């Protein structure tokens, strides 16, 4: 970290000057973290894209902080000239999450938004392709939320694996029957153990 961070510091001043309400920090050599409120995200992104030429959108992701009842939307941009990665983060409330789309700035943002809409239930205003993206006829709550318990969902929908096949109860017996050999004496006492105990 002791390397002299000229670009990063200059970048921080720029952002601090135009967006005073944001708190900007340097995580490490090529990483600048910007925490801002929800409605200043689109102006920040377009400012950064046009003036500071951060023109590569690497990532849009969403983190579910269920304890503070917040979703955290993360926009990660990369500038090929200054070789710095901006991680812009904003918190939106979890109960009825709503956000404006940014597919005007980057066309491929639409794919990220479709996935986040399907996986977290965040409503992106202005993005018209909001239908099924990965799942088909999904009635449960959006699956990537932390309160969706996947193991319990599996128990309900797919009948339990161990009960699936009667001969899977006693594996040693079945293998012996298939291969036609006799279970050796010392192994007999193990073969009667039932799988459900």
């Amino acid at each position: 970290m002791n390397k002299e961070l000229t670009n990063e510091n200059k970048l921080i001043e720029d952002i601090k000057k135009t967006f005073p309400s944001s708190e900007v920090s340097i995580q490490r050599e090529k990483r600048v973290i910007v925490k801002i409120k929800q409605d200043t995200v689109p102006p920040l992104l377009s400012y950064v894209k046009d003036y500071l030429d951060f023109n590569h959108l690497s990532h849009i992701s969403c983190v579910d902080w269920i304890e503070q009842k917040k979703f955290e939307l993360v926009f990660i941009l990369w500038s090929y000239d200054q070789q710095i990665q901006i991680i812009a983060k904003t918190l939106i409330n979890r109960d009825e999450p709503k956000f404006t789309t940014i597919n005007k700035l980057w066309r491929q943002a639409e794919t990220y938004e479709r996935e986040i809409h399907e996986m977290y239930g965040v409503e992106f205003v202005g993005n018209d392709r909001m239908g099924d993206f990965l799942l088909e006829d999904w009635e449960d709550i959006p699956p990537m939320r932390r309160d969706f318990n996947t193991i319990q969902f599996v128990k309900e929908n797919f009948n339990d694996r161990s009960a699936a096949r009667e001969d899977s109860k006693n594996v040693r017996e079945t293998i012996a029957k298939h291969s036609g050999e006799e279970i050796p004496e010392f192994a007999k006492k193990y073969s009667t153990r039932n799988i459900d105990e």
Partner: protein
Amino acid sequence: MLNDKYSQKIVDIIKNYTRKHSLWVVAYGTGCGAIELPPTMTSRYDAERFGIRGSATPRQADVLLITGYLSTKTLKRVIRTYEQMQAPKYVIGFGSCAINGGMYWDSYNTIKSLDQYLPVDVFISGCMPRPETVISGFIKLQEMITDGKANGAEKYKENLDWYRTNQKQVIKNWKMPDYNW
């Protein structure tokens, strides 16, 4: 004299012999096992020596190779592909994900054991089986064909409603053609 037991037996032997030596695979690359199919079909392991050849459409195929896990969305397409295939058809389940859900046992989107939804003739175990085990799976299927034990298709036809209830439990809206051949 023509269709008594002996001539029927001879015809069966010839039929099984030709079916054994020419297995056309519609490799539905559903899971990660699909990466071990190119090495099996190409120059190092060469499954074509046994007459195993890829076929483009389910109409022309005999073997449906499910390579690995199946998500519910794919299961619907796999059932349609299976039902489009012509009568003496076999299914090979590939990898531990087809046997008991494998590594994705707790995923909400993959089915756990393939033989509740499709009649499977041969299972090849292994978390992505090697090309040699894939070919040994095919040899096992060929042995089952010669002594007439590979009757997954008949099993599917007989207890079709058991398979349908399992399938409908997983696939929510069921707009599929009915299966009667």
